[in-house]
């Protein structure tokens, strides 16, 4: 019996093999969305818990990697929805050292604030498309939506940011 068939049938050893094969990739995808190592580890566990939970829905001929990435994206989106209620600004992993020194600390803080206040589904696509520069097709596949919808969400995120950051980019905001 193939590995994926055994996994779909509930074999824990097959699940362990898949976990060890894919945990790094799921983690790497998640940390780029949530931007925190500890939270990304928790979400990686949550992703694989959901994978094991819904194993009967997985077709052994299907693409496990793509399925895992979609579940990871949903888990990260659920986290962003919950975390949005917290008013405190999250500490970004890349940190101020990685940011542009030409932009003053206050402006950076303002940009971060505006970004982290985006509605979760816009923040997710904006993070992946504008910061991490992931192709629209990959984001669409991970979210289970069309590339056109990803493009629309990026556009809406930009529109929200443009309004919020009007003092930093007045020429853009007046359009």
């Amino acid at each position: 019996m193939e590995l994926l068939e055994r996994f779909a049938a509930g074999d824990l050893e097959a699940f362990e093999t898949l976990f060890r094969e894919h945990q790094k990739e799921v983690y790497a995808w998640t940390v780029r969305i949530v931007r925190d190592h500890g939270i990304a580890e928790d979400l990686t566990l949550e992703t694989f818990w959901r994978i094991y939970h819904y194993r009967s829905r997985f077709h052994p001929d299907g693409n496990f990697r793509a399925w895992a990435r979609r579940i990871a994206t949903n888990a990260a989106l659920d986290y962003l929805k919950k975390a949005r209620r917290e008013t405190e600004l999250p500490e970004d992993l890349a940190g101020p050292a990685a940011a542009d020194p030409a932009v003053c600390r206050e402006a950076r803080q303002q940009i971060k604030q505006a970004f982290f206040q985006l509605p979760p589904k816009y923040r997710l696509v904006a993070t992946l498309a504008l910061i991490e520069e992931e192709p629209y097709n990959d984001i669409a596949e991970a979210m289970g939506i069309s590339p056109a919808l990803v493009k629309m969400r990026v556009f809406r995120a930009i529109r929200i940011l443009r309004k919020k950051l009007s003092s930093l980019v007045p020429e853009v905001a007046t359009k």
Partner: protein
Amino acid sequence: MNNEKDSKEIKALLSAAIAPIKDTALRRDLWPQMLCKLDEQPLPVSQIPWFDWALAAVFSAALFFFPGTIPALLYHL
């Protein structure tokens, strides 16, 4: 065109404040934690969402109170 320009300007602002994550490496094997999580959080007995149960209840009630709709429903099935 304007949209493209806006996009570039906002993208420039964002990259000035929030850099892409470079360190995406997982630092430890999470399998032991996974085993604990599987033990702590057993699978729920019912996997059917409450909304489906509510829908089924409404549908059953409708059939009970308006039995005349049953032949019409059977006809359309």
